[in-house]
């Protein structure tokens, strides 16, 4: 479904700040895979996400989705296949527009936008039904401006907007990190439900080790621009946090340093 072949990316080439962001990364996701990604600061997790969504283009190597070579397509042309939720709850929605207008824009993902109305009564019914699945009462507030919602509500809405058109790839970039524990837990639960129900091929960056082990059917660990550990479903079930950290230190030769890493919640 998603393939990265020998992907490399260098930041600030030739300058004193030159930094390897990704080096010779290979990754192959099967349809329906739910992969959690962990790693220390600057390991290349976000670059990996940006490489798939098209915000960044690889210096070498290729990115393929469902067989299409997409390495050189800009972000707006990849959105047909890729849904994304950002860490910042403000990033995934338009604050001065209403909930239904935001959903209408998400609904037209990757399609040519023409002069038909964004919110029709038929679509509105569908939006209401989708919102009710979140179970947080947004279905009764279709005409509320998104800027009036709380961070948790906005992130739940972002998640719905990223997924309800069933993209081939779902990218979750620490999407619960900016929320307080209770709201993070709710958004995590919604993520689990939606991903398993729609069988979305998902890549989720997290700094919550416990979450990385608990969710999904595969776990990859990154360090210094490489994937240093790839844990399959079976092994992952018996994985503990201590073993994961031990494994990281053994392979990378240094301590897992992420000032935000959370061992559990």
């Amino acid at each position, binding site marked *: 479904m998603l393939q990265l072949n020998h992907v490399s990316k260098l930041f600030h080439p030739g300058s004193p700040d030159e930094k390897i962001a990704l080096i010779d990364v290979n990754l192959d996701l099967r349809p329906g895979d739910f992969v959690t990604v962990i790693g220390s600061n600057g390991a290349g997790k976000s670059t990996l996400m940006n490489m798939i*969504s098209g915000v960044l283009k690889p210096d070498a190597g290729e990115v393929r989705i469902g067989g299409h070579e997409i390495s050189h397509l*800009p*972000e*707006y*042309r990849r*959105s*047909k296949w890729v849904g*994304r939720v*950002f860490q910042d709850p*403000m*990033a*995934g*929605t*338009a*604050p*001065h*527009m209403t909930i239904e*207008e935001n959903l*209408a*824009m*998400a609904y*037209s*993902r*990757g*399609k040519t*936008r*023409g*002069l*038909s*109305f*964004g*919110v029709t009564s038929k679509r509105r019914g569908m939006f209401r039904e989708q919102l009710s699945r979140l179970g*947080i009462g947004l279905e009764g507030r279709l005409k509320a401006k998104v800027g009036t919602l*709380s961070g*948790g*509500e906005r992130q*739940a809405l972002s998640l719905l*907007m990223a997924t309800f058109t069933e993209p081939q790839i779902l990218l979750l970039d620490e999407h619960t990190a900016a929320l307080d524990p209770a*709201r993070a837990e*709710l958004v995590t639960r919604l993520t689990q439900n939606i991903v398993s129900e729609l069988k979305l091929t998902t890549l989720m960056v997290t700094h919550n080790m416990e979450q990385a082990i608990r969710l999904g059917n595969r776990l990859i660990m990154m360090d210094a621009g490489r994937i240093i550990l790839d844990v399959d479903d079976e092994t992952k079930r018996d994985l503990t946090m201590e073993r994961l950290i031990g494994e990281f230190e053994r392979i990378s030769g240094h301590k897992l340093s992420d000032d935000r890493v959370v061992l559990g919640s």
Partner: protein
Amino acid sequence: MTTQMLGALESGLLYALMALGVYITFRILDFPDLTVDGSFTTGGAIAAVMISGGSSPWIATLAAVLGGLVAGAVTGLLHTKGKINGLLSGILMMIALYSINMRIMGKPNISLLGENTVFNSIAPLILMPIIVVIVKVLLDLFLRTDLGLALRATGDNQRMIRSFGTHTDNTIILGLSISNGLVALSGALIAQQSGFADISSGIGMIVIGLASVIIGEAIFGARTVFFATLAAVLGSIVYRVVVALALRIDWLEPTDLKLITAVIVVIALVVPSARRTWKQKSLARIRSEEMISMPDRKQVGGGL
């Protein structure tokens, strides 16, 4: 007095189209577009040259709109493809348009007295409300389409709408184009109503547009697109009424008008934000006092 007020209403409606254009760039795209000062004159210039050349005033007006659309699109291209700062793209285009307008007109002033204009058969006070209502309704409808939503999101959260597959360069160019098309339409109609086109007629137009949009919002509110466009139109009329009243004051000269306009815009920009800051502060103080007086209450609010 009544004649003056009717005159203010008439010019308010004529300039309302320009205010709607400024609303699109300033409020929707969040792009301060100074092209307006040039494209307003372009509209008048094209209409005047064509009408005095014997063209139908309606076709001349349409051609003026096309000229504005192109001018706006060029500003958009400078900003998006040329990666030039938005404010500077507009200024560059405004300066360039001065020479272009001079080329179009051939001389600094073209008289339309005795020519056949759109207002010959229908009085401005009858024709203008019809045109303004049509433009306002069409704009409202457009802003509710898939494309219109993408345009609004471009000004609201560019990163978000890109992740949903909109090429924001295109929406910015489109918005600037429509905006300057409306500005040129306003310029073309004003030239016909006043009986001349002048090379300097667009100077300070952007500030008048901003004043109309801001005054309208302050008085009539802008909760939805419908009210925001209505506010731009009414703001334009209120602005002309204020100007008419100001000119009745003895010690004010007509040339003081631009200063008055600038002062109105400054007041309208400063007062709401100062009021908001003050409200926030007093609310924060009240809330913290509440919290202190109720120590066992953990947190108010909660939920999701």
